[in-house]
């Protein structure tokens, strides 16, 4: 995190919230330490925390931006932000980030009869089939795609 871009926000105050992983602060906080437990604790009425929902393994989770139209039928559009988890064991059918010739590529992983293929989700785009001696490494598994609507 670079400080330059945020220093103006810091001066405005309230910046601490802006950088924490969770988007919202808990509404209810029990302060009773002895005696009967606060009834609110049991209800667990806490605002939904998006980061908590979407990120299972914080240390292994990275954000990557998708560029291109080859995954449209899988719901991934140009400019979408992908939530990528490296802790998830990649399996056939997963949408993955793979390293092909030193570059990140987003495709659907397909394993059939021991052969690996990276399939595009758009008929206009070719699949990536590793050639003899070419190594294709799966970098992480895409768990969610965030798209922003014009508003």
């Amino acid at each position, binding site marked *: *995190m670079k400080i*330059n*871009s945020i220093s103006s926000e810091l001066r405005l105050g309230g910046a601490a919230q802006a950088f*924490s992983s969770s988007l919202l602060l808990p509404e209810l906080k029990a302060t009773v330490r002895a005696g009967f437990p606060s009834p609110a604790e049991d209800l667990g009425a806490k605002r939904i925390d998006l980061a908590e929902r979407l990120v299972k393994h914080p240390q292994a989770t990275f954000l990557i931006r998708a*560029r291109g139209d080859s995954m449209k039928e899988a719901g991934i559009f140009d400019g979408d932000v992908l939530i990528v988890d490296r802790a998830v064991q990649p399996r056939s059918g997963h949408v993955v980030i793979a390293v092909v010739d030193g570059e990140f590529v987003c495709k659907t992983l397909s394993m059939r009869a021991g052969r690996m293929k990276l399939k595009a989700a758009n008929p206009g785009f070719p699949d990536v089939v590793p050639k003899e001696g070419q190594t294709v490494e799966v970098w992480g598994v895409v768990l969610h795609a965030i798209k922003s609507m014009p508003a």
Partner: protein
Amino acid sequence: MFALVDGNNFYVSCERVFRPSLEGVPVVVLSNNDGCAIARSNEAKALGIKMGHPWHQIRHLEEVAGLVALSANFALYGDMSDRMMSLAAGLGPTQEIYSIDESFIGLDGVRGDLKARAVAIRSRIHRWVGIPCGVGIAPTKTLAKLANHIAKTAERKPGSYPECHAQVCDLSKASPEEFEALLSATEVGDVWGVGRKIGAALTEAGVRTAWDLARMDPAVAKRRWSVVLERTVRELQGVPCVGLEDHPEPKKQIACTRSFGRSVEAFEPLSEAVSEFASRAAEKLRAQGSVASEVLVFIRTSPFRKDPQYSRSMVVPMRRPSSDTSAIVGAALLGLRAIYKPGFRMAKAGVMLMDIQPSSLEQFELDLGDGDAASEASRVRLMTALDAVNGRWGRGTVKVGSAKVGEAPRDWSMRQDRRTPAYTTEWSDMPVARA
């Protein structure tokens, strides 16, 4: 029992996670202002590039050997370090962060096969974060550091040590013969705490290997050399002498970190602790005549409690390299404010100074009208006086008022022509995948 977990060629490894095309290529990371090499890939080491090698002396290797040089990206390294450290913490009940890429894990009370456990943690860090590590396990810190050296060297240079010790080396399980063979294959200068000067003098005196040193009578070590060397000898003999947070400084950074006796939730006490760590780090920095240009601050909860977990760090670039206590405390507090989140019981906090250079290299800038340059000389005098007072009357006699938050550091125009994006800390710098 201790483990030392250490990221291999850490800065280069961080860069490679996001630029896989750098795999197999000689890579160096340059200090701020692109002055000299502060991290090297194995391929770069094979080219003969040394730590601290000035850039202008190795620049020609770009053309002839395909060397890739990158400007240091401390925002990235700080975040990757945080991810790695919090996974390494799973190895045992206590963790001491020694530098940005190294931490000691106390293994007392851990049951089962330690080596198998270390192998599992190492592979988790590699898979989850993308950083390859070396792990050394031994009954003392000095031996753990040595085991780590063996683990890394055995992997990098096949034939240097038996292959079974590559990546993870457990000296506590070695037979006496094997232990002797491993220490005999290690030069005395590679032992933790043996500096270059003493190393040369020891070699001169016929103490050439770690094994030679381990066989020395501690009383002789104390009489002929120093108490520090006596301690090293005892540690090599398996007697723990180096306690928690009481050991030689790492070369690349200065770190002041501590686990709290009782967990801390409020901002006030946290900011006091961080101010104190930053002041102590600044003191150490001045003691070695250096300046730093990046300050890393981190806070984290304990992974061994059922509490909600939180771990965050931030690298704050300083306006210009400095060893000034108030500038460093200011930067650390600015970072703390940004990462602090209420509702978590923090168990640990720390401050690390990075991109350390001798103060003689300090670059002064034109006075831009804010009076900073003009007051530089008087600040140096103030800091000298501060250290003298604290040296005489005890640490912390005179402190920087921690309520005062230093001014927001602005970008000082540094040369960082080759810096990669802040992939994990800036929304606009996120890596891109072809879809």
